[in-house]
């Protein structure tokens, strides 16, 4: 049941990421809800379903940007594995810790993107200023999104027959 709920949440997050968030940009950087989702999924689900879901969701995202096929699937997969391994040793009580985790994951995401683009010969066009503002924006919005997703995850529906 938890897997189903997390899949549905992931799909909703993906639609939001593709349809709504590109319109809420700051310095050309859109909030990264997928990051918040993978963080939540890796904490809530067992390892294998998390990896599978991260891969499938990342691949779905890649298909909307076919030239970078496989990039987001790889990033989400690696982040899911990383979170799955490390989240138990990371204190989640303090919002600052959560924000730091989101920031580090965002940095990892951006570095992975740059490496992929460099290897694919697409070139990296973002300036240092854009990158910094983008990372800060993604950290704030990602943390906020994570708490919202946690809240949504707590909602239970009971059907009485």
């Amino acid at each position, binding site marked *: 049941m938890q897997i189903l709920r997390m899949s549905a949440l992931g799909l909703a997050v993906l639609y939001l990421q593709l*349809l709504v968030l590109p319109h809420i940009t700051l310095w050309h950087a859109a909030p990264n809800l997928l990051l918040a989702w993978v963080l939540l999924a890796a904490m809530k689900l067992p390892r294998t379903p998390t990896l599978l879901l991260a*891969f499938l969701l990342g*691949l779905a995202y890649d*298909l*909307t940007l*076919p030239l970078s096929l496989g990039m987001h*699937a*790889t990033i989400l*997969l690696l982040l899911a594995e990383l979170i799955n391994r490390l989240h138990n040793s990371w204190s989640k009580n303090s919002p600052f810790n959560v924000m730091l985790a989101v920031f580090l994951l965002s940095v990892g995401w951006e570095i992975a993107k740059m490496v992929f683009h460099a290897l*694919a010969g697409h070139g990296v066009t973002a300036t240092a200023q854009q990158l910094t503002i983008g990372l800060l924006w993604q950290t704030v919005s990602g943390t906020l999104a994570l708490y919202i997703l946690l809240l949504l995850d707590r909602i239970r529906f009971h059907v009485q027959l």
Partner: protein
Amino acid sequence: MIKRHLVLSLLLLLCLVLMLGGDESRLAKARLLSRSLYYPFLNSLQTIRSIRQARIHNRTLHEQNALLLLRVIDLENRVETLAGSDIPFLPTVQHLIVADVIGFSGSFEQRQLIINRGTQDGLMVNDAVLNNQGAVGKVVAVAPHHATVLPFSHPQFRLGVADARTHVQGILENIGGHQYITMIPIDAQVALGDTVITSNLSTVFPKGVPVGVILKLERHPLHPYRQALLQPFANIGSIEQVIVLLSRKGDSDSLESAGY
């Protein structure tokens, strides 16, 4: 240990396969996945995007439609103005000007029309005022940018008119709030429904401008003339635009110059 890393390894291998190759190769793989496994997802995404685009397009069309509507209204107004200046009963009028009625002075039958043309536009006192239905009145006061029109419904208005069929002359005047043709000879062959036009004795109007139709013929036992109740063509109460015929001067030997 192997089992623990099997899924991750397989998925990473898949990612590597997807990433390998040039842009063309990645596009081909993406096309294959888009048409098979991810078809429902991508199709729904495309549908949502097309709905949003349709809404934006719809909004743009609404704006264009509103602009076109304003343009149509503007053109209709221009056509109306041109149609109003097309006077079939005045084929050889040399100088005329279209004016908007911008106000009234007086009340009831004492009402006079204020128009938005004046001496700056060449208007003079006693210029004839009509619309595409027929005679309306005459200019009685002119300022640089506006003028006052005495309509035929005013008690002080007099106009030399004639029966279009029999050419019997008479005078149009307002009696008790109604328009009458007075001074009709008793033996004149005037009939109900006859059209009344301006006569050649008028200094204000050229001959032949329609005025109205005869509704009723009356005769007072003490008067040597008959009078006819007239239904005017022009409705003074709802006039929005008029045409002013600029100065047809010269005829001093007329009924109006004698006070009519």
